[in-house]
């Protein structure tokens, strides 16, 4: 079990309605279904991954979050989860707004582009950073809108959504992010996990 999933699961209350956007092979969905007794749905763009989810008995629709979230009514889920995919959308702003329309709360995780290894990579090599969590070249990466933990915090003010909980993950260690430690968390956190609300 990925630490990230464990953290997400800890945030989610039992017996809630959850939508996993970009649910991949359904690992998180299965975990939440078993451990939190959630009524969980998934949306996934890859046909192969949808097939895997079906084989696990999960309710998943094949679709693209950028266009297909609009079919869900307002507040139809207690939580909408978006795991490490915000950076892959053409218009992350619309996606965030849609998440907060469809869900009462949203949990968004982002690979932190402000991590020191990423910064060092660009500084020393002068080429687009390639790290273990960002393994693609600039020309074939699905990640077209990378951001840092600090960017996301700033984004919340621009768009106007509330961050209820913000956590940084570093080598399986979880820590809270606040205004006073934002500089360091943005430098050392590999992943940012945010619980947000309109």
């Amino acid at each position, binding site marked *: 079990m990925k630490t990230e999933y464990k953290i997400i699961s800890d945030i989610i209350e039992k017996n809630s*309605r959850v939508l996993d956007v970009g649910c991949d092979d359904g690992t998180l969905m299965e975990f939440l279904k078993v451990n939190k007794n959630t009524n969980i*749905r998934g949306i996934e763009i890859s*046909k192969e991954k*949808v*097939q895997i989810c*079906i*084989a*696990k*008995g*999960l*309710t*998943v*629709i*094949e*679709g693209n979050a950028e266009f297909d979230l609009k*079919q*869900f*009514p307002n507040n*139809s889920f207690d939580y909408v989860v978006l795991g490490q995919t915000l950076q892959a959308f053409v218009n992350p702003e619309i996606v965030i707004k849609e998440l907060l329309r469809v869900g009462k709360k949203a949990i968004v995780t982002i690979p932190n582009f402000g991590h020191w290894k990423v910064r060092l990579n660009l500084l020393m090599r002068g080429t687009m950073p390639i790290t273990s969590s960002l393994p693609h070249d600039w020309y074939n990466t699905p990640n077209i809108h990378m951001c840092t933990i600090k960017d996301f915090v700033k984004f919340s003010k621009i768009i106007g959504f509330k961050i209820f909980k913000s956590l940084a993950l570093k080598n399986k260690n979880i820590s809270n992010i606040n205004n006073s430690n934002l500089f360091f968390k943005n430098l050392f956190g590999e992943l940012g996990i945010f619980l947000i609300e309109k």
Partner: protein
Amino acid sequence: MNVKNSIKKIIIKKPLKLDCGQTIDNFPLAYETYGELNENKDNAILIFHALTGDQFVTGINPITKKDGWWAYAVGPNKSIDTNKYFVICANVIGGCMGSFGPSHENPQTKKIYGTDFPVITINDMVNAQINLLDFFGIDKLFSVVGGSMGGMQVLQFVSNFPNKAKTAIPIACTSSHSAQNIAFNELGRQAIAADHNWLDGDYITKSTLPDKGLAVARMAAHITYLSKKGLQEKFGRKLQERDDLKFGFDADFQIESYLRYQGSVFVDRFDANSYLYITRAMDYFDLVKQFNGNLSNAFKNSKTKFFIISFTSDWLYPTQENKEIVIALNAIGANVGFVEIESDKGHDSFLLDVPDFLKALKNFLDKSFMEKL
């Protein structure tokens, strides 16, 4: 005709008010079953057939002596596993495989109905088939499954009987027949009507058959079941048992010969008037209109778990039309899964050996069966 007499039937005594206003009673509904109904009677799957299908889903069809129309998907250890599930399939009313249809005799006039047969709708079809549940003592079906017109019946069934199916799998279908769908059906009907042997539908009495018209209808329809790419890959411009063009109107090309063959074998097993009635039923199908423009309302009383499947190369019932059903279900928070299967076999994909489709169907059913829904 002995084989035809062995077709299983229930006689539905209860009057059924049809959408056209007429009421029918004491009419036969022909069916077939596969597998065993378990003790709890909770493993039954009702399969709905498409336009030219019948109740003989799998195994050898006793009438045509060919494989059942869904032999790839239904049978022991197959997607719809008859070792596990009790499969029921009925011939639709209006059909020609034993159920009440236009080739039957009108008890009042003692004449073959022909075009005096009442116009049937998809709604009428499922309202007739619900009687099978009583007949088998089944309170709730484990699933209702069907492709194309079978899918339309799935949608209508859940709408009419919201608590009678735990799961529903509409495949390659639509909630509302499009202008293009109606256009192709009209082409088929006009081909039949143009055959001078059709005799305004009275051909059985006059011991003749509009087989040329019916064959043309089938040929035209068959093209709509395939994709351009599929046709090109299978036939291209290949010639039929000849080295060069003959500068005439025989079947020079393999595709011509193939279509002619499809037409000719079809007339041996299908009734022209049934073709008119069933295509009409499809054309009249508009579940959206039935619910005043809001498809979601068709399902709002149901807890049925849906799984919707479409195919990339199906241009007759394209993914978008299938997705509209998904959207309507999500709008009311229904339990709905959806996948579009990659296939270049066109609309016919659901009837063919398309492994991704067969896998998805099996996985959905088997996992849902284990769940306590």
